[in-house]
């Protein structure tokens, strides 16, 4: 099982090494990090919270769906929790495949599916307050 949700710092090399093999010509890796602003507003930090066991279950479902669409693809999805200042990496997704086109598509699919369904939340901390992202309020 190459998925992870924890407060531990993430490593791009580690995620990539988990999916890489001599039969795979290509890996496409996504690294998402905390930006220092959002909609022009300065951000001091993001605070991530996860429903960890369900998030891992969703990551496994994402992998299963990806393997069905792009046979031979391998995925590793690592998400970090806790308080992260700008520049810190919050998510790493590594996708490997014998075919680069499949690796690109599977990696893209995984981050979009994660954003839609993984039970993970972030709160933006500003110099003067905070708000949960996605509540539309």
């Amino acid at each position: 099982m190459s998925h992870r949700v924890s407060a531990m710092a993430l490593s791009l090399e580690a995620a990539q090494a988990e999916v890489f093999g001599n039969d795979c010509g290509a890996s496409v890796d996504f690294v998402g990090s905390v930006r220092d602003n959002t909609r022009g507003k300065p951000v001091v930090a993001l605070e991530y919270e996860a429903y960890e066991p369900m998030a891992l279950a969703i990551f496994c479902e994402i992998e299963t769906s990806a393997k069905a669409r792009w046979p031979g693809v391998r995925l590793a999805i690592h998400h970090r929790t806790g308080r992260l200042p700008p520049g810190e990496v919050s998510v790493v997704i590594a996708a490997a495949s014998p075919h680069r086109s499949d690796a690109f598509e599977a990696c893209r699919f995984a981050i979009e599916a994660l954003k839609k369904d993984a039970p993970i939340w972030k709160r933006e901390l500003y110099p003067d307050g905070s708000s949960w992202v996605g509540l539309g309020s």
Partner: protein
Amino acid sequence: MVPAMQVTLLFFAAARERAGTSKETLELPEGATASQAKARALELHPALAPLGPQLRVAVDQAFAEGDAPLREGSEVALIPPVSGGCS
């Protein structure tokens, strides 16, 4: 009287803050559904009301339809709009 069962209710993020708790035990009539658990949570925690329509329900760590039946010991989670990933 319908026999009762107990389920565990989990609150996350904005729902956790509004409910003022991350976890509680909920007593429901046997055969109660995911929707009924959510409705009961909203009754018990009026501060959740503004989030109500946006809350998805997960049962035992998977998203559940409203009519999904619960069992003794089910883990029911109220899932506010998710926002994982990056900025």
